[in-house]
């Protein structure tokens, strides 16, 4: 098992302004800025980490939160190995939005995708509106794990990414994941294939049909 290379795709979903981009930037660049731009559509970033003797490359898609962009979701979560469903602990509406995403991901990806429900802005504990117990129970009920983070104070962020990486490796290795079996049957250095772009190409072909000439 030692010395393997993995490549996984993670998607961040959740209501606007809950801190998706901040979580990503905190993790990847260890930076925090109250005033970054709102994300339009989605942003892509990558990060390489080592877990034990394994190297893991994370391809992270940070998506736009506004409900209007909800329809774009599949472009980014398709083929994801892991998903962060982020809410703001001071904002109950943002937690409700998580439920929609969970339902949608379950329908689209089945159990292929590891779900993490993330209550961000734990630095604003005094303004908490989402009871932690309720959030944890909900997470459990949908087979997800719950995390508390503060991108601002850099609390729980590394742990979050590390934990999901470990779980993705476990899942990959446990061969429960059909796609993993397919990929593994190739060879052990099938780095590229772990980013599951298989679905994408199907869609591209559909697109082509609609093209002109």
């Amino acid at each position, binding site marked *: 098992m030692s010395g393997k290379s993995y490549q996984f795709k993670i998607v961040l979903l959740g209501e*606007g*302004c809950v801190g998706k981009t901040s979580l990503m930037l905190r993790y990847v660049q260890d930076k925090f*800025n*109250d*005033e*970054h*731009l*709102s994300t*339009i*559509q*989605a*942003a*892509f*970033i*990558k990060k390489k980490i080592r877990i034990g003797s394994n190297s893991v490359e994370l*391809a992270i898609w940070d998506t*736009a939160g*506004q409900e*209007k*962009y909800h*329809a*774009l979701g599949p*472009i980014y979560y398709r083929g994801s190995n892991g998903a962060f469903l982020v809410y703001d602990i001071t904002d109950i509406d943002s937690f409700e939005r998580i439920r929609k995403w969970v339902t949608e991901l379950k329908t689209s990806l089945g159990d292929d995708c590891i779900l993490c429900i993330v209550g961000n802005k734990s630095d604003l504990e005094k303004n908490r509106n989402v009871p932690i117990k309720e959030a944890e129970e909900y997470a459990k009920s949908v087979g997800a794990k719950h995390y508390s983070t503060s991108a601002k104070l850099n609390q729980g962020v590394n742990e979050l990414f590390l934990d999901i990486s470990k779980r993705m490796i476990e899942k990959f290795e446990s061969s429960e994941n059909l796609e993993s079996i397919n990929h593994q049957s190739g060879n052990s250095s099938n780095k*590229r294939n772990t*980013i599951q*772009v298989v679905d*994408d*190409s199907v*869609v*591209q072909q559909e*697109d082509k049909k*609609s*093209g*002109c*000439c």
Partner: protein
Amino acid sequence: MPFDGQQQVYGAQHPPNLKIIKELKSGSGSSNSHSLPGTVVKAFRDYEKKTIDAWDIDENECFNLTDPFQISITDSEEVAKKIIKNHKETQEKMQSSVSIGSKTTTKLSPGPGKALRQETDANSQISNLSKSFKITSLSSSDVKSTDSSYAKPSDPKSSIQNKKNDNQDSNASNRHQLYVFKDFDQDSTKIQKFENILNSSPINLSELEKLSWKGIPNNFRPICWKLLSDYLPLKKELQEKTIEQKRNSYWESVTECYSPSFLDLNHDTLRQILNDIPRMNPLIPIFQNETVQNIFQRVLYVWAVRHPGSGYVQGINDLLTPFFVVFLNDYIKIASYTEIEAKDIENLSQESLHQLEADCYWCMTKLLDRIQENYIFSQPGIQKKIIALEELMKRIDRALYEHLKKNNIEFIQFAFRWMNNLLMREIPLNCTIRLWDTYHAEPFGFSDFHLYVCAAFLCRYSKNLIEEKDFQGLMLLLQSLPTRNLKISDITLLTAEAYKLQVMFANSPSHMSGNNL
């Protein structure tokens, strides 16, 4: 700043994209080129009509302009070959003269900015200059060699290199001094032209469009945008009254939309806007100013309430910023759009702020009316344009298109933002403002023409992109293309390239029509 005399225009150096012509020929499959001349001729006629003043028949050995029906693909390919040949022969000479050519065109920036005219721009403009000012240092061979520089392969690096050389050359050259003066002269001619048009009543809209296409001097920009947006009436005598009515009507809407019953209904919209406003343009200090943020909040919220079909969509807030900084120029002197200080705003009278805000609202509304499809449910306008962009790229830069496809890049993954925010997130604000001069002046500038600008924009980075060998590298580059140092002159080139593409493809029957989408 725009119209900075030190900036180069790419027009004089940029080659015609021969690939386009070839693609056009081969890409149409069995129909081959026989179906094309008609289209091309029609497109060419449109083009020629718009750009007639850029042509100098004496200098045109290759195109017979008196009879546009003779223009065909074969001809243009022949021309291209000639140019290449010419280029090879005169490459030596060009070293010394190209800088002058490009220098000159910066100020003379192309006619209603357009496409092929860019190609002849340098030579015709230079010849005009040499005639009118009797500049003996420019011989006809200089002119030719400038022209021939178009045939150079489209290589961003080499053009950058050229520009560097140009700077060195021209700085050391007396001729440069001469041209700086001429540039200035030309610029004041441009200002004069704007003054003439704006002082007439009713204002000749098509003349104004033609002139604005190439970029509007900062001081005229507020009034020109208002006229081109169809906000300010062309008849002088109607202007004051209309504007007053419009401003009042906006403020009535504000009162209405902020009434408890409306607020209750639109709670989510306001919340979203309040979320986004502090996150706009964090690099430009005035957008952190409370007065400014309140203005934005009201404009966006009122717009959203009054346009329930689309409502507020993230990104629309970006589209308000150019209007705001441009119209500020009516009240305060602005040296640079990105360096306005908060105290400048605080010093404005309440009345000025009210006027400014209403003007921003109406002009943004006019803009959004033109691209409404982009923001209604499922954003079909954007989806269509992304598919069209993909088709276009297949034809104009096959290598890049295939490279992207091979690496599983989907156009929607990067181009969505280009369409949703009109490239504002990709290029500096002053470049956006210059781009909008053209968009305001071009029919369907913000909608159809933007597609061609996106295509030209993508082509511009083709070489950088081809160098990236995997999905991740490509995606990272695509979402932060090296645009930080883009200049106004780059936008002039971009619009000219886009116009060329529009002329070539917009009328192509098998292309871009709604049926295909």
